[in-house]
């Protein structure tokens, strides 16, 4: 069938809380091909991180629940895969990088041990080989003096260097899919540029498919091939990176772009008014309608997807402007 490494179909990840059911991910679909980088953009609470965690079934259940959908990895549904089998994929065929490198590093273990463990577990090589390979990996991610650094502990590394160690761990088994959750958010811009360059190189050279979760539109513009914008648990717009930035379709995407200060111009910032909605009280209709400058009566119904699987938006206003006869326009 397709050459997609990852194909997410109508994913529903819900949380059962005392305040009701929170549909953190509510019908998300996308696919990522070999060597492709997909940016998953949204603000806090939009469901972008939960989507990423769901792929490796790292959402605690309960309170979480996979209420529907499929996550096809090389054609195999990860949601129904036996746990023991999935464990052989984690860190091996599918790797993950988090915002804070210390969430992935054990402070008590030398770096050589942490990288080596992955290799011994998944590749069945011995300690001495694993040690040699760890040095190679550190060198590959640009850590100077790797033969000495490999025997140090995480606290002996700076933030940027730790994130490189995590990336080296993620790459140890040459994964087919890399899930990166805000990998550069905690880093300084000059270090961010180095790490992004590294991730881009991987996708290109090893053919790794990458899902890059971020709130930073600038990062996405720089490295992603295509983008999905999430709001309140749903994808509200998607498209190739060029089209999405030059001709955004959804009012939320337009709002985000208009509210980011830019280094190359000094225009007026037009913030998105109001605040993101409370997911426990979200009812029928477009979740963005209370903040939307283009909302009309139709927006009380949940919007249908307008466009194709590659390019489109979930917005009634888009459909209206496309369907309205010119005579009806003011």
């Amino acid at each position, binding site marked *: 069938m397709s050459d997609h490494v990852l194909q997410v179909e109508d994913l529903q990840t819900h949380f059962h809380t005392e305040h009701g059911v929170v549909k953190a991910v509510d019908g998300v679909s996308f696919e990522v091909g070999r060597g492709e980088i997909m940016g998953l953009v949204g603000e806090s609470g939009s469901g972008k991180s939960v989507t990423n965690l769901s792929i490796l079934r790292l959402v605690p259940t309960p309170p979480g629940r996979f209420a529907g959908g499929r996550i096809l990895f090389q054609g195999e549904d990860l949601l129904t895969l036996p746990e023991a089998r999935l464990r052989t994929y984690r860190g091996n065929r599918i790797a993950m990088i988090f915002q804070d490198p210390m969430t992935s590093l054990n402070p008590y273990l030398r770096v050589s041990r942490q990288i080596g463990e992955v290799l011994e577990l998944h590749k069945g090589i011995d300690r001495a080989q694993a040690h040699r390979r760890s040095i190679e990996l550190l060198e590959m991610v640009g850590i100077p003096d790797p033969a000495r650094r490999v025997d140090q502990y995480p606290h002996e590394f700076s933030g940027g260097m730790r994130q490189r160690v995590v990336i080296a761990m993620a790459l140890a088994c040459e994964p087919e899919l890399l899930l990166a959750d805000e990998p550069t958010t905690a880093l300084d811009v000059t270090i961010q*540029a180095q790490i992004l360059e590294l991730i881009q190189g991987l996708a290109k050279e090893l053919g790794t498919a990458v899902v890059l979760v971020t709130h930073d*539109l600038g990062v996405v513009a720089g490295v992603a091939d295509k983008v999905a914008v999430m709001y309140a648990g749903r994808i509200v717009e998607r498209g190739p990176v060029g089209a999405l*930035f030059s001709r955004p379709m959804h009012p939320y995407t337009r709002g985000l*772009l208009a509210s980011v*200060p830019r280094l190359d111009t000094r225009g007026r910032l037009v913030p998105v008014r109001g*605040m993101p909605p409370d997911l426990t009280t979200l009812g029928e209709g477009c979740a963005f309608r209370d903040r939307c400058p283009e909302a009309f009566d139709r927006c009380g119904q949940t919007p249908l997807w307008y466009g194709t699987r590659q390019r489109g938006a979930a917005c009634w206003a888009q459909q209206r402007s496309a369907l309205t006869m010119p005579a009806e326009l003011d």
Partner: protein
Amino acid sequence: MSAPLLQVRDLQVHFPVFGGGLLPRQTGAVRAVDGVSLTVQRGEILGLVGESGCGKSTTGRAILRLLEPTAGQVVFDGEDVGALQGESLRKLRRRMQIIFQDPYASLNPRLTVGDIIAEPLATHGLVSGRDAQRRRAQELMHQCGLDPKFVRRYPHEFSGGQRQRIGIARALASDPDLIVCDEPISALDVSIQAQILNLLQQLAKDRGLSYLFIAHDLAAVRHLCDRIAVMYLGRIVELGTYAQICDDPRHPYTRALVSAAPVPDPEIERTRRRVVLQGEVPSPLSPPPGCRFHTRCPVRQASRCHDEVPALREVDDRQVACHWAHDPDVTGTG
């Protein structure tokens, strides 16, 4: 030109480092701020940018004397801040306020919003009587885009952006001339950042306020500030107008910083030349000799950079601390 509102001369803040066994003794010092000079005019917004650990927040705090400077002078409206004690320092602090980065940690969770905003009014004896203070607090809430009817609510009932508005209202309560804004938007969501930036801009315009706006996000600084100072390892490496710094940077570090800041436009992102710096910021415990940037500098020269500290000098109407700033053959500018 009239006398500047704030004048900082050769400010130094060193933190002692203790080592040794049973009897701890000072073994070194972190030179967090090491000779910073800058001025802020009345009604001016000066941006202070740099990466983590460059000393920008420490500079802001030392100006307000929330930290005692090791050396140097801070003159606010003609008065030497370092020489003031007790009541006279408190009086001056009414005119210098601060907004913090984390709107969750900087508000007392046990006070209502009204009490938080009214506290400076009472402390400085500006408005007397609880009712009058509450009314004033509500006016300030309104000016900062908060609904005054929430005056009796507690900080936890508000979102991050709203809490930052509370912090701004509190800073405005004592009617200051200068506000140090220490990364006021970096903890907020993208769509909320613009709301707060616009609010700060509007307030500065309406009240003739001066800001020292500390941030690592060059794009936000460019948007708001009149002039920008760039810090690296405790020193200012370049200071100029926002356009000079962002469009035509001269110091190699500023150039790297500008080129690394992502722009939300794929066409620009994919075509522009990026200066990717090698390595990491050295420790301020033992900064490199000579130019502090020479260990990472892409245009470092064999002579001078290693052994001579570059002074902040006037180059083309702005100040640059680079031996080669005047030489386009070396820096690749011009």
